[in-house]
């Protein structure tokens, strides 16, 4: 059963991981990232737009990009294996 839906499981899992990594609205509205609940996206917003620390804000955005790199590489390899272009 599992080998049959392996592709679907991986697609859903990676999509969820990406989606959760960049989560912003729920955290921002509920706690504002205070009391140790800050995530990368809320910290990015606070540094860039509230504290005007443009450098730190941009660096946090790049950290987010690096965090999704493994998934990106995995996607590209899968794309090459399937060879979408004929």
């Amino acid at each position: 059963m599992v080998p049959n839906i392996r592709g679907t499981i991986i697609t859903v899992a990676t999509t969820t991981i990406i989606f959760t990594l960049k989560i912003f609205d729920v955290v921002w509205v509920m706690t504002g990232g205070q009391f140790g609940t800050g995530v990368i996206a809320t910290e990015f917003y606070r540094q860039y737009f509230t504290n005007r620390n443009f450098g730190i804000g941009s660096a946090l955005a790049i950290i987010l990009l690096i965090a999704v790199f493994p998934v990106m590489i995995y996607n590209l390899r899968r794309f090459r294996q399937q060879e979408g272009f004929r």
Partner: protein
Amino acid sequence: MRGRGIRRGAVFVNLTLIFLCFIWLIPTVGLFVSSFRDPNDIQASGWWTVLPHPDTVLIEELPLPEGDRTGVMTIEGATGTFEEFREGIAAPDGRIITWVGNRRAGRIEVRGEAITANTNLTLDNYEKVLTGKEYTLTFPDGSTQQVQGDDLGGAFVNSLVVAIPATVIPILVAAFAAYGFAWMGFAGRRVLFVLVVAMLVVPLQIALVPILRDYVTLGINGTYLAVWLAHTGFGLALATYLLFNYIRELPGEILESAFIDGASHMQVFLRLILPLSVPALAAFAIFQFLWVWNDYLVALIFIGAKPDTQVLTQRLAEIVGSRGDDWHLLTAGAFISMLLPLTVFFALQRYFVRGLLAGSVKG
């Protein structure tokens, strides 16, 4: 033997699914019920008290007993002194008899178990959050306060104004791009598509800062045009990828015969590809519409703090901030923001499930 095993498995699966749906539905139902309840009721009891449940309720009120009130008295089967009745005495049948007031003036309250339901429901909460008018709030102690409505009605319209073009534009662009990638040979086609696949997972936070700077330079920051373009850019990678997967699977013979008859790429696209890809277009349209409707970050950055242009999610977040204790307003506002996504989902769920899976997962 085998049949019974399968049936038992099906029962187990169904029970698990029912349990999961139950856990999923409870907060939504609670939200829905709470949005119709009176503010004072919300503070005093849970939303589930609208369902019939056993509770201790006031059954009847009696006048004070006649005669000597200094000694031991018997009221409704309960026996005790005035002081004991003030605290409340349980009668032999389980009812609780309480003396309210002083020795000379007051009443007797009889409380007991009964099936009751708190059906004091109202549409006031929706009226208060939807309009921008001022209304008067009355507290339990009788004092009043003038409160400004939250004008979610206006924000609802703003959300529509943002979401509809932000859905149509990326679909138009992506359909052209997907057709080009699938059925036209041009230099750099493979490299460009690999870029699209790579962009699928890039979080939009990366692009916020450069885009914001460009918008300021162009002078369109804070306009709806800016938000439409931002959503278009962020949705384009996924749109192109999904539509490409679908359009590529269309039978090539149809296109070839059209080309032999002298059709141009534009004619093939408009007359064949677009009508044939309606399921995929609809699926992505739903997806993008829901995404834009629920978006908060992009609106927060590109629309900003102007009250008359803010979208629903922004206004809702502001209500959470300024009226965090006013659950009757929060629940009503939250349900208003869920209304359209729920409608869209239930109306088009056939497309949602079928179209997104079409071509996206290969065995």
